[in-house]
């Protein structure tokens, strides 16, 4: 609030420095926000494609497992699922996009050959193999979707934070600083006007005093002259005689 600030030149200079810094920060943050939004748009396009593929892969996988269930029975499918030896693993590396650390997910042992799966070939049918293969493809899509969606979530958080900072500077901090600056400038101007007025008054008073003094002196001189004149007038007739 403007009323909390002391109207001094020192405070005015400090506020001007803060305004300069805040304006520079506001500009930089705006650029960052715009840059992040542009990067986000690229990721969003990618995410839409990945989502489309994911939906397709899920549909295929469901069809195949339903077929396997229908042909082999649910127990056989569950039995095969319990026999799996190799488990898919993921490792995460990070990439930096405009200060936002986004993951790059590497997967291993997702797609497996028939002998790597672990269930016996004799006891199961090609339907189960097809379903397993479809689900392996689905897992690949899920890993890709996870990578893209994590990047999106992280970027959205950063965009939100940056946007909030930009708004705080634009609508809260900077208007307050401008208000304070104006308040101090007005107060200082007022003080300056008061000072000029006071000086003017002092000068007038001094001049009036000097004038009065001069007039008193003049009056005293005149009185002295008047006192001296009768004496000379009294002396002059005697001299004429």
């Amino acid at each position, binding site marked *: 609030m403007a009323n909390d600030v002391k109207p001094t030149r020192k405070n005015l200079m400090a506020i001007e420095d803060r305004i300069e810094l805040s304006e520079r920060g506001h500009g930089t943050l705006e650029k960052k926000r715009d840059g992040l*939004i542009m990067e*986000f*748009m690229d990721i*969003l396009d990618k*995410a*839409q494609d990945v*989502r489309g593929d*994911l*939906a397709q892969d*899920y549909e295929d*996988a*469901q069809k195949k*497992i339903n077929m396997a269930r229908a042909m082999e029975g649910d127990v056989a*499918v*569950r039995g*095969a*699922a*319990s026999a*799996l030896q*190799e*488990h*898919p*693993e*993921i*490792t*995460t590396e990070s990439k930096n996009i405009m200060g936002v650390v986004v993951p790059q*997910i590497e997967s*291993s*042992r*997702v797609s*497996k050959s028939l002998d790597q*799966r672990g269930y016996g070939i004799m006891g199961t049918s090609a339907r*189960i193999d097809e*379903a*397993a293969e*479809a*689900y*392996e493809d*689905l*897992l690949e899509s*899920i*890993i890709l*979707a*996870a990578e893209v*969606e*994590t990047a*999106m*979530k*992280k970027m*959205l*958080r950063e*965009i*939100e934070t940056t*946007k909030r900072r930009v708004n705080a500077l634009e609508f809260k901090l900077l208007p307050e600083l401008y208000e304070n600056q104006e308040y101090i400038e007005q107060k200082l101007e007022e003080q300056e006007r008061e000072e000029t007025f006071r000086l003017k008054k002092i000068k007038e008073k001094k001049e009036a005093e000097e004038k009065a003094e001069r007039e008193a002196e003049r009056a005293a001189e005149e009185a002295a002259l008047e006192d001296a004149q009768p004496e000379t007038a009294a002396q002059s007739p005697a001299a004429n005689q």
Partner: protein
Amino acid sequence: MSQEIAVVGSPEFTTGFRLAGVRRFENVPDDEKDERLDDAATAALEDEGVGIVVMHDDDLEYLSRSVRQEVETSVEPVVVTIGSGTGGGGLRDQIKRAIGIDLMDEDEQE
């Protein structure tokens, strides 16, 4: 550090993923989802060995508000939902909030 994929949902949903080798799964039968799905999702989210959690879109309806919000915004592990919807319902709201426009809607209209 290598992590694994976890699947949370009904036994019908998880079986397929187990067939692809996923060994971390939480089976919650349909009639127990109201009571148990919250705990199952929380357990998967809190497991440090899990990098990705897979859930069905429809199952999000069974989650309590706080767990659902956690599921939708979690980054480590990230939750991928698949199924009937387009996915990323929470993400859509987040986009609307952060960017100010419903970009997903715009893309769908195109």
